[in-house]
């Protein structure tokens, strides 16, 4: 087991170095003069230009710049935002809980309904239920989620007035961040100060519903398709027939004997959806003005805040690598065949 973890970890290091090379070179791929592009002016005063070049270290040879960059990273220095002058790491850590809350809630939504849909389709295989569930899953898989978000806002917020249009909580509630998770923060403060914050938790929950559905739609479809095919595979096994033959209730056969064994590939798929979620977060957060990492990066791109783009991408990539690594390891734990394969 240890050797397996070690081997996988060994593959991680070159990938991580590659990521740093990529984010490092991004800033050098800007067409034209990087300072002029960043400031947004042409014909800058040469003295100021030289100063800016020096401040950003762009006057050094390329390899020296890269080693400086790595050195800063190892010291936990991810640079500071040109726009706000705040350290990028600090901004990232402030905004990250919002994205994490949204992603977790989308994942829960997708996993619950995806598993349910997949199981139903598998046991009704070939029937109308199966065809309609799988048709819906393919539609969800093909969904342009930014449009899906707009449609949901149009129907549920503008027309039916059931859900709020944007943000994490009503502006009337000025909730100080404690954990960064709005559901927990609003619940805590509502208990501490019921007079001023009555209804804060429900309000936060209502804000979370539409973004969760939008971000969870594609993972839901992927999980449903995977669950169905994995269930069908397992349903063919002898031990399922034995379980049926010895008179177990259909519920027990499906959920205890079949689903548990069908879950392994599904779990991997769930783990690998983290990349989809982070990409989807960019769109979902933009539509719902959700103050998370995705919106932050898009705003940074809009205002050409290169240190934020560079380090933000690095952090997201690191996150994805680490989660995929964890999924790999978990998969090795549950499935010894993977662990011992070369």
């Amino acid at each position, binding site marked *: 087991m240890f050797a397996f973890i070690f081997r996988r970890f060994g*593959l991680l290091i*070159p*990938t991580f170095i*590659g*990521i740093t*090379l*990529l984010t490092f070179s*991004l*800033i050098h*791929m*800007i*067409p034209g003069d990087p300072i002029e592009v960043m400031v947004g002016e042409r014909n800058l005063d040469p003295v100021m230009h030289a100063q800016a070049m020096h401040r950003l270290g762009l006057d050094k040879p390329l390899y020296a710049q890269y080693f400086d960059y790595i050195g800063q990273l190892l010291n936990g220095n991810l640079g500071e935002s040109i726009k706000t002058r705040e350290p990028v790491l600090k901004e990232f850590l402030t905004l990250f809980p919002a994205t994490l809350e949204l992603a977790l809630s989308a994942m829960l939504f997708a996993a619950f309904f995806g598993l349910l849909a997949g199981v139903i389709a598998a046991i009704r*295989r*070939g029937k109308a239920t199966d065809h309609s569930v799988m*048709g819906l899953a*393919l*539609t969800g*898989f*093909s*969904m*342009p989620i*930014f*449009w*899906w978000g*707009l*449609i949901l*806002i*149009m129907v549920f917020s*503008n027309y039916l007035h059931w859900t709020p249009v944007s943000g994490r909580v009503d502006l009337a509630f000025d909730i100080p961040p404690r954990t960064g998770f709005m559901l927990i923060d609003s619940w805590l403060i509502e208990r501490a100060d019921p007079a001023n914050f009555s209804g804060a938790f429900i309000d936060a929950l209502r804000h979370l519903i539409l973004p969760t559905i939008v971000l969870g739609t594609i993972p839901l479809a992927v999980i449903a398709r995977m669950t169905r*095919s994995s269930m*069908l*595979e397992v349903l063919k096994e002898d031990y399922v027939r034995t379980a049926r033959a010895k008179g177990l209730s259909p519920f027990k056969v499906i959920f205890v004997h079949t689903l548990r064994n069908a879950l392994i590939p599904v779990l991997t798929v769930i783990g690998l959806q983290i*990349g*989809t*979620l*982070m*990409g*989807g977060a*960019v*769109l979902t957060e*933009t539509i719902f003005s959700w103050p998370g990492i995705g919106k932050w*990066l*898009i705003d940074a*791109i*809009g205002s050409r805040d290169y240190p934020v*783009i560079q380090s933000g*991408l690095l952090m*997201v*990539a690191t996150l*994805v*690598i680490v989660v*995929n690594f964890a999924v790999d390891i978990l998969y090795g734990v549950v499935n010894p065949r993977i662990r011992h394969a070369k």
Partner: protein
Amino acid sequence: MSLQKQTVVPDADAPVATYPSPVKEFWQAFSQNKGAVAGLVFMLVVVFAAIFAPLVAPYSPIEQYHDHLLTPPAWCEGGSRAFLLGTDEAGRDLLSRLIYGARMSLLIGLSSVVVALIPGVILGLLAAFFPRMIGGSIMRLMDVLMALPSLLLAVAIVAILGPGFINSIIAIAVVGLPAYVRLTRASAMSELNRDYVTASRVCGAGLLRLMFITVLPNCMAPLIVHATMSFSSAILEASALGFLGLGVQPPTPEWGTMLASARDYIERAWWVVSLPGLTILLAVLSINLMGDGLRDALDPKLKRIA
């Protein structure tokens, strides 16, 4: 054992067994899947409309009719027969913009698939043929590209290169590249140990011949299926870039870009918001349906258990 088989001489009088041509065989398997056929029909309509846009579209996509701002579709109250699907905030005919938009979306999708496919196949074959020398470094490079969420990487590339048609294609192609490399490498590696490759090698086939004439044709099935699927995700990514304002720039009609400007009219004009997205959804859905059918027909190994 094989000698025995060879001694069986075919009876000259027996009727010659006819095999269906590969095309016919493929079509028989493909048309079994009704969804795939429906997808194909819809895509043929879209492709036809895109190619003959100037003939099919009732108006120019950028002509503004200021007397008809935000006209609802013809079947709604206040709609006009002149504008079947209504007009947008600048008085442009929505149907014409959708038809011309199909050109942009299909072109970006198709080009980015081609731009990713060719280097992807070459790199994948190289990685399979030289696993020790360059295979490792190619695969690590692909791991790097895979580590970034695809849309985020595309957004970053466009942010650096600047928005626009060509840069969208580049960004989407770079994002799609790793999957082609991995797929080609995996299928080429499994072919490399087969006897026919050894035979070809023994006969003195050169490296290029081995790569492209001996091995590659036998790796085509999963590649074709994946190319179809990535065509649909390329359309989705292109429209997402357009929606974020990083794709094709207005007033050029593109489905995603049309949605970006439609956001402000969400309360007043449902058609401006719904129709472009519905078009994207239907196009992507049709291609995915076709992809499922292609997989069933071309690659029985990948066939869904159904």
